[in-house]
Structures are given as structure tokens and as C-alpha cells.
């Protein structure tokens, strides 16, 4: 079997996952998209394991690890989502903007409001 088929599929799946992470608002949907991306990676791992006939079976072993970690991740992720929902009654990712730079931008670094007014 050509390597190209599974690898291309993995690339496309990954891109779909990227789109989902970037475009979806619901945190749970974002988690699902992340799963898609993880699976794309898994596919690659398996493909190359088979292609290279790895004696350590590292591709498959790592795939198993990834699956386990993904399970843990989803568990933790959902816990966090629940916490957020409990605190804010919303899990829309683009509304969590506590990191935003809030005060109005100043023209000169370190300039106080009074000075700016005076300069005008």
C-alpha cells in the first residue's frame, strides 16, 4: 500500500481539527477537534511504524500512549470546562477574555493620562 494515502488522510484530518479548534466557540467542540488532531497524529505513527517495520514497535506503542493521554486530557479538560461553566454559566471560548489589555492605548510608553491631555 502506498504511504501517501494514509499520510494525506492524516494531513487532512489534522487540518480539519485545526479549523475546528480555531473556529468553534463551544469548549466541548474544541475538545472534539483536538481529538481529531490527535487521531491524525496517531494515523501517522501507525503508518510509519508499518512502513519502517520498526522492531521496537515504537509507532504503535506511542499510539497507545497517545490514546491513554488523550483520555486523561479529555477527562481533565471536561473538568475544567465544567468549572468554567459553573463559574460563568458559559463555555464560549471567545468570551473568556480576562487576558485582554484593558486600558486605552497610550501614544507614548509610560505617559500618564494628564501628560497626554497636556500634550494635546
Amino acid at each position, binding site marked *: *500500500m502506498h504511504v501517501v494515502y494514509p499520510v494525506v488522510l492524516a494531513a487532512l484530518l489534522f487540518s480539519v*481539527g485545526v479549523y475546528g479548534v480555531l*473556529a468553534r466557540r463551544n469548549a466541548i467542540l474544541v475538545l472534539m477537534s483536538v481529538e481529531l488532531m490527535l487521531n491524525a497524529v496517531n494515523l501517522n505513527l501507525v503508518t510509519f511504524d508499518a512502513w519502517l517495520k520498526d522492531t521496537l514497535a*515504537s509507532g504503535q506503542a506511542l499510539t497507545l500512549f497517545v490514546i491513554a493521554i488523550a483520555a486523561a486530557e479529555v477527562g481533565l479538560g471536561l473538568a475544567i470546562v465544567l*468549572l468554567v461553566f459553573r463559574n460563568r454559566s458559559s463555555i464560549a471560548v471567545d468570551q473568556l477574555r480576562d487576558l485582554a489589555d484593558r486600558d486605552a492605548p497610550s501614544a507614548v510608553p509610560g505617559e500618564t493620562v494628564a501628560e497626554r491631555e497636556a500634550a494635546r
Partner: protein
Amino acid sequence: MTGAELVFVPLGAVALGSSVLVVTTDQLVRAALWLVVALGALAGCFLLLAAELVAWVQVLIYVGAVVVLLLFGIMLTRAPIGRSVDLDSGNRVAALVVALGTAGTLVTVVVGGFRTASIDLGDGSAGSAGTVGAGLFRYWVLPFELLSVLLLAALVGAIVLSRRDIGPRARDGGED
């Protein structure tokens, strides 16, 4: 085109199509169900690549556990069961551009890199439970054990996060 390829292509198409539906559907529950389809199709792909054990683990853990968890999450966040209009953020166009860019780049590179490579699947025993299990416990013991610690930690973490009575005791007024 070999027989395996003939099977692989439609399976891949199913996986891809259902994953696209996952990220585009306007119903939350359906997204989870389409995810099941996509992951199942992928398990089929793993089988075609002679990764038998991985395929079964995929079905068991992903389809069996992860998706169920996700469904629980959907329910616990009181998401609407039917259509909802605001599942996509305003970032959609930029996301599409980036995603298409990623796809284009990756596909170009991958096709360019592996145009002639082909997989010799051999007798198909490379991915059996026996072979993989021997590999795991012969060469991957330490990571395996570490992973179990990680799982434990994740478990504890999830509990701590989701239980109300062991959260931060005094809530400051600063939060909204």
C-alpha cells in the same frame, strides 16, 4: 491500486467526511456522534495498516470512553439538544484560511516526500496484541509506568477540579 488501498480510500473518505461534519454541524450532540463515526472509520484504517491492537484500543477507549465523557460534558453544561446558532465564533474566516493553508502545505510536503514509498504489510502480525505487547513490556516499560502515574494524577486533578467542596475556600469579590 491494491486491494488494501481500495478499501482504505472509502474508509478514509468516511473518516474525513464525518470529521468535517464534526466541525461544521450546528447540533452539539450530533457533533459527538459524527465523531464516533470518524473515529470508527479511523480504527478501520488502523486495521488495514495491520495495527490490530491499536484499532481495538481505539474503538474501546475513544469510542467507548472519550465520546461518552464528551456527551456527559455536553449534558452537564446544559447545552441545547437541538440546533444552536452560535456554535461558531467570529474567527471562522481566519480559521478557514489557516486550516486550508495547513492542509495545502502538509499535503504538498507529504505527497512530495512519499510519492514513491509503499508499505509492505507482510503477514499482518506486526500489529497483533502479542507483538505489540511484547514490544511494550520489553522496551517501553518506563514510559508505560510513567503513563500510569500521569493517569492517576489526571484522575486526582479531575476530581479536585470538579468537586465544589474542596475548591478554594474563600472566594474573593474580585471574580465576576
